[in-house]
């Protein structure tokens, strides 16, 4: 192939323009979705959770979460006379296949689904040295896996233990609040699969979202409020022993 100097002079800028559009990435999936109109969170109702593990399995299916790692998991707490301060907590395989049956009712039992709290002042994004993890303009903590180095600093920084290093990709991984679903008008996979409505996606910027009425009429807490993370996973009926 023979390329004249003149052709080369035309081709070079054309290639540069093409490369820049590659670097700029793909446009947003839903043209109707405006990030500035939303501020996402999650409502978790402890009194409704039956510990079936549907959310854990749904999350692993939806997000190709590797075996043995969890973006969401369910813990079962057992608080009795001997363990008021330090309750017995189990989570066999993340609660994926449910929990062992309890016959007698000594003390209190309850299930606590855990996931990324999508903190408004998240410790994990503050420590990232390269800007690979960030809070999106609609309030979801996300990871740019093409930019992540896999240093795992964020894994240590998360006070809720919600991050892990993906075993094959070797980059940080976590709950995206099903960002690929909520931007298309769907709810998250865990909410979709929850049979009792114990999990509900909440849009704090939407004045018609039932979350606002719920927050005003129920005893709602966040996990580890003393850490001032601005957590947006709101727990109804949360026991004081939950860590």
């Amino acid at each position, binding site marked *: 192939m023979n390329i004249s100097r003149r052709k080369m002079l035309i081709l070079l800028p054309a290639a540069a323009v093409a490369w*820049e559009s590659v*670097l*700029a*990435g*793909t*446009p*947003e*999936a*839903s043209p109707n*979705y405006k*990030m500035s109109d939303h501020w996402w969170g999650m409502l978790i109702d402890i*009194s*409704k*959770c*039956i*510990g*079936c*593990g*549907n959310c854990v399995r*749904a999350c692993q*299916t*939806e997000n190709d979460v590797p075996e043995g790692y969890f973006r969401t998991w369910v813990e*079962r707490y*057992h608080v009795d006379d001997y363990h008021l301060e330090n309750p017995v907590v189990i989570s066999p395989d993340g609660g994926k296949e*449910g*929990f062992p*049956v*309890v*016959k*007698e*009712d000594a003390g209190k*039992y*309850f*299930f606590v689904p855990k996931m990324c709290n999508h903190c408004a002042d998240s410790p994990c994004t503050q420590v990232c040295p390269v*800007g*690979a*993890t*960030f*809070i*999106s*303009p609609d309030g979801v903590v*996300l990871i*740019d896996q*093409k*930019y992540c180095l896999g240093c795992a600093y964020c894994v240590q920084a998360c006070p809720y233990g919600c991050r892990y290093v993906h075993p094959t990709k070797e980059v940080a991984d976590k709950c*995206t609040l099903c*960002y*690929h*679903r909520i*931007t*298309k008008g*769907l*709810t998250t*996979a865990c909410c*979709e*699969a*929850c*049979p*009792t*409505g114990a999990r509900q996606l909440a849009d704090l910027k939407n004045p018609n979202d039932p979350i606002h009425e719920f927050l005003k009429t129920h005893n709602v807490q966040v996990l580890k409020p003393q850490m001032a993370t601005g957590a947006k996973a709101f727990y109804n009926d949360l026991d004081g022993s939950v860590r």
Partner: protein
Amino acid sequence: MSAFKDARHLFRFAGLFVLAFLVFLVVRHYYVPKSFGQYGHYRGAAVGEIANLPVKFAGHQACEDCHTDVVAKKNTGKHAHVNCEACHGALASHADDPSTVKPVLPDTAVLCARCHTASAAKPKGFPQVEPAEHSQGLPCETCHNPHSPGMDAPATAAGGAK
């Protein structure tokens, strides 16, 4: 000018600095992605890339658009608030291509027991049974229609289009 008499090597050195800085600017221009800093200290295009990931759970709206008979049945019973894919699993592939991708009917022995096996750990108001005692080994759907599990609604077929 006597102060700068022997200073030519300093100017050469400064020139090197300027050159290195220009090289840095050029390299930086090509290596930092265009969308970095679009919304904050991160690659703005990553937001769109994550939003573009494929969906595996179709969402109950997609099911209800076609299976109107099941929805009608479901709305009459206690499972009205249970989404289709809570039991039937992720079926976006079926919703995208209903004629070729056929969902497999879930096994009620596993499915019903997962939620309704009695355990003191479950909330008190939630309906729970000892499966072995409750049905003496009969499959749940002998008496209950999973789409509307109340006993007053006699179980016919599992309800709805197969």
